[in-house]
């Protein structure tokens, strides 16, 4: 599937609308981070990843590990738009019997879910394990893992970071959603993690930066990351929580808040007008 850059914006717009609809219908869920990561997910699933929506278990697929399970709505909406399952199913989010669990759960059978996750700080270790398998078996598939900036406060992230560099896992690309906020407020007030770039570099990683809402920059970062040899790469993607809906952009109160049906309509109108 060849997708041109100018089409990505339209896809991202549709994914944002479905994120808002599905969370509003659920009555709970993480709106801010899901909207903030939409452009990166769109780039990944429509441009970067080697994958087959019709064959989710394809052996040679790239693996996408979502360590921050709470932004499941962006994963689900992107998978649906990529063709893994019908878009209408997004309306079952967080409901009894749904394959779309509040945090991803593989045992509920949704195609495209690589990992059940939701307790922060675990996904990078799993990504390291998968990358080791690919190296051992001399496979070309890569592992991409998605992390929050607040998640950098978990000690296990740094255990995993150390091990990825130790085993020179250049088939592993981590992405940090650097929106500068977490539930309690700004990351620099809750627990400052700067200088973040220096930390990762000192742990033996290549560090790339990009604007997480600019498809050219996102694409460029991934191209560079894929060309990196003998060390893992982390992309620190500057993002805006709630991106696309001006009245909630950058507002950490929207980390884990769902819009009412009325708010959702307004948000969607705004997204439609902007495009």
């Amino acid at each position, binding site marked *: 599937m060849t997708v041109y850059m100018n089409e990505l914006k339209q896809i991202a717009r549709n994914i944002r609308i479905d994120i808002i609809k599905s969370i509003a219908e659920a009555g709970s869920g993480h709106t801010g981070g899901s909207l903030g990561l939409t452009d990166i997910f769109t780039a990944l699933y429509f441009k970067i990843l080697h994958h087959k929506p019709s064959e989710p278990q394809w052996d040679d697929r790239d*693996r996408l590990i979502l360590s921050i399970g709470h932004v499941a709505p962006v994963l689900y909406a992107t998978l649906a738009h990529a063709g893994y399952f019908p878009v209408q199913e997004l309306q079952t989010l967080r409901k009894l019997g749904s394959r779309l669990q509040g945090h991803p759960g593989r045992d509920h059978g949704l195609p495209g879910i690589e990992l059940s*996750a939701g*307790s922060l700080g*675990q*996904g990078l*270790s799993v990504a*390291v*394990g998968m990358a080791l398998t690919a190296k*051992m078996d001399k496979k070309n598939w890569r592992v991409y893992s998605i992390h929050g900036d607040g998640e950098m406060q978990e000690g296990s992230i740094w*255990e995993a970071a150390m091990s990825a560099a130790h085993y020179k896992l250049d088939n592993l690309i981590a992405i940090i959603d650097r929106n500068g906020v977490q539930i309690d407020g700004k990351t620099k007030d809750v627990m400052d993690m700067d200088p973040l770039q220096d930390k990762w570099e000192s742990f033996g990683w290549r560090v790339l930066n990009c604007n997480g809402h600019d498809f050219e920059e996102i694409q460029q970062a991934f191209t560079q990351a894929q060309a990196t040899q003998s060390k893992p790469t982390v992309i620190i993607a500057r993002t805006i929580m709630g991106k696309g809906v001006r009245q909630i952009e950058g507002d950490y109160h929207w980390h884990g808040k769902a819009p009412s049906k009325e708010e959702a309509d307004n948000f969607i109108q705004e997204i439609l007008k902007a495009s």
Partner: protein
Amino acid sequence: MMHFENRGNKATRLGFGEGVLEAARRDSRVVGIGADITGSVSMDLFAKAFPERFFSLGIAEQNCMGVATGLALSGKVPVFSTYGVFAALRTTDQIRISVCYNNVHVVIGGAHAGISVGPDGATHQALEDIAIMRVLPNMTVLSPCDATQTIIAVQRAIGNMKGPVYIRFGREPVPEFTHEHQEFQIGKGQQLKDGNDISILATGHMVWEALQAAYQLQQEGIHARVINIHTIKPIDEEIILQAAHETKAIITVEEHQIMGGFGSAVAEVIVKNHPVPMDFVGINDSFGESGKPDELMKLYGLTRETIMTKTQSLFYKKETFI
């Protein structure tokens, strides 16, 4: 019924290492993870034989558990062993979410279990691991009784299972008494001695002590049945209920906290189906301390003498319950 004899002492951790090595020879998907104490938990046999399949990850147990999950999700069969206190307790969240919720085939070795670790003291004596591991959905919990049985158990855990397995073993050499061609099935207890007066259900290293207690009680006229429960989860309800029906009193024996452990698992089966009087031999809600293994076992009542005393008193008391 056969009389079990000690063929010589051997540590169950060696059984673990030998079992992993044998399983790895048969299946190239088996990979190993080390957290700095590779030799101590007998994973060095595997690491030397298959260096390209062994990953040293340093003193970072949380990461080890996640890496094991990633290896399993991509088709490997990872074995990660460290001291039980770290394997089961330091990484409980990683085991719960990454390993158990994903229901991946990761084999976790809980080494140096129990108070018999000795002089290292309370920090290194895993006395809570059974309770914590058995409460996790999808987890299988194994607790073999000697090195021979550990070799078999770990090979089954690696070769015949699909989900997560926790296998518990100890540091000190203990009597070797089970047969290398024994009938061993995960989830099935083994009746080692007949008897209809009372049943002693034991797990791990305490099985030998339970047998010795029963042999001595036999001479005093109490015919105790002895059952080895090497699989704590899923537990063999059938053999437990048969013991409850036929002997009408049950003692459980474990080198672990009484609360929430093996005895509790047996009690859950008993109270729901066929209540009979029970008593428990184990650690009574306390930490251990430094000392020689045999001194500690004696001080904390993990001996054949304690088993005999509790068995006698429950045997005489059971009449009043009926």
